[in-house]
């Protein structure tokens, strides 16, 4: 064999390379590449999942904020409505109370007027009686005819007018 040998033994190289290729595919490149792919896929999935979750969280946050705002507004509305109703009720009560008081005052006045009128009427009667009695005593005759009574009353009315 010479130093620069190029002969049929080259077939060993092809066989050896093929064997090494198969062995490397089975024991090195196959499993490791698969593992690397799986890992990068898992990482990508995790990142995607995290992004999706963040988006979802952001969406729910906005939803909740909107709901909260809505709820606040509703509560304010309810409070406002209650206040308004309370005010109306108060005013109605007040008006009713005022009416009652006015009516009662009017009644009282009317009553007082009626009492006073009745009293005055009574007094006038009394005075007329007394006047008739006195006049009858003075004139020594009975003065209880209708004509006498009218005369006294007219006199009294004249006195009242001057007083």
């Amino acid at each position: 064999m010479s130093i620069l040998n190029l002969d049929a033994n080259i077939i060993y190289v092809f066989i050896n390379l093929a064997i090494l290729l198969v062995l490397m595919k089975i024991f090195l490149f196959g499993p490791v590449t698969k593992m690397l792919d799986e890992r990068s896929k898992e990482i990508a999935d995790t990142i995607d999942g995290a992004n999706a979750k963040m988006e979802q969280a952001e969406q729910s946050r906005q939803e909740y904020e909107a709901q909260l705002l809505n709820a606040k507004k509703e509560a304010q509305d309810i409070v406002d409505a209650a206040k308004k109703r309370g005010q109306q009720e108060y005013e109605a009560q007040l008006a009713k109370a005022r009416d009652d008081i006015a009516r009662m005052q009017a009644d009282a006045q009317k009553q007082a007027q009626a009492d006073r009128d009745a009293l005055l009427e009574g007094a006038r009667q009394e005075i007329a009686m007394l006047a008739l009695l006195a006049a009858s005593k003075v004139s020594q005759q009975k003065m209880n005819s209708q004509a006498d009574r009218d005369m006294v009353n007219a006199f009294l009315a004249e006195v009242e007018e001057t007083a």
Partner: protein
Amino acid sequence: MDIKEELIEALQPKTAFEIPLFGGIPVPESALNSWILIALFTIFCIWLTHGMKKVPGRRQMVAEILVGFINNFCKDNLGEHWRTFAPYIGTMGIYLVLANLSEFIGLTPPTKDLNVTAGLAFLAVLLIYGSSFRIKGLKGGLHKFVEPSPIVAPLNILEIGIRPLSLCMRLFGNVFAAFIIMELVKMLVPIAVPIPLSLYFDAFDGIIQAVVFVFLTTLFLSEAIE
């Protein structure tokens, strides 16, 4: 005279043994050494990759760095077809590095045998032109020969022969020369001096040549399939 005979003796490709079939099939030393290297490295790989987990341990890290390096190299150079070629390119690179470094475990480098480098170069060229026709189709593969201009077609055709020859001879020449130098140095000063020289000629140059071989193959391949 003594040195010359000794050197020639050392440089002869030897037949390791003969398989006693069909009147004896000779097995060259390079093939036997390749088998040893393949067996050792396969055992190493099995040890590295057994019981792989999602969260890698140290062994798995080593395997992932190695494979990731080769995969990324192929991704950068070959683009979308990297999955097809990465195992072959990687196998070639691993084999060359192992072969060129085999001196360190006391084996004659298989790449010192011209058959081995010629075989590797032949396979590389087969891969390059085979992939070109496979991926580009018959027409596209043929069209590659008139690119960038029909004037260079003869050169492109010559390259079919030149590329494997240069790949083969560069590798063989480097390893062979390193082997001769180391043999001479060992004959002259057997102690201490060969260590740094061996580190340069066997380790550094061996790895450089392996990288050059793989890199050129990848370069030609990317050109052929782009």
